């Protein structure tokens, strides 16, 4: 990364990662009531796998390049087997699959993702302020 503003690039990668995490959490919450028949897997909770971007070999100082989302992992496909005989999707025993995800966990992670996003916006703000102060050296 040979950009003139490396702090921006690093913070930007983190903002993108947190954005994708929030998207995954939004999807998890959106599907909190998704019911599947017993013949199909339940809605599987999505987890974003984030990984550090290593520093480039040419860099004089080995500062990393930020963070990147590298994979999605899925939760339990068995789900919560619920007895709901009136549901059109229910099998002969009256069972359906509901997602096994926990809404409390989703909301907690959503707050963590939001705070992470805010933190990186604060980094962008401080970096901009620092760069502008550097321009004021020996000011006009």
């Amino acid at each position: 990364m040979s950009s003139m503003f490396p702090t921006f690039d690093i913070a930007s990668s983190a903002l993108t990662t947190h954005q994708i995490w929030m998207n995954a959490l939004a999807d998890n919450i959106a599907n909190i009531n998704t019911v599947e028949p017993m013949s199909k897997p339940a809605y599987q909770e999505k987890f974003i796998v984030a990984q550090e971007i290593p520093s480039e070999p040419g860099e004089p100082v080995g500062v990393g390049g930020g963070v990147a989302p590298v994979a999605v992992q899925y939760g339990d496909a068995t789900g919560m087997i619920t007895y709901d005989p009136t549901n059109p999707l229910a099998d002969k025993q009256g069972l359906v699959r509901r997602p096994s995800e926990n809404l409390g966990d989703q909301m907690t992670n959503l707050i963590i993702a939001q705070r992470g996003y805010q933190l990186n916006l604060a980094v962008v703000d401080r970096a901009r302020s620092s760069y502008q102060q550097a321009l004021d050296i020996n000011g006009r």
Partner: protein
Amino acid sequence: MTVTPIGGVLNAAGLGSIVPVTPETTAAAETDSSTAGVGNAFTQALDSLQGTQSAADSLAQTAATGNLTDIHNYTIAATEASVTTELTVAVRDRAVEAFNDIMRMQV
């Protein structure tokens, strides 16, 4: 009253021993064209400014057409363009200031 003209400075004793100044040329400065002179530095700075501004412009276009996926991509690109512009203007101001200082110099 008659004023006798002052003799030329070149007649002063000892001046002939001063070695004329030769411009310093280093091999590196001549071979590496990227570091040769302020002009090239300015050209490169303007090129990079052009790059950041067109990046910000195209992201602004995606924002206007509703194709922007990540808001922060645009705001960061716009910030980069703005800071780069300020940097270029600051460098130009200093260069003009230095030029004016030299032009004001008593000779």
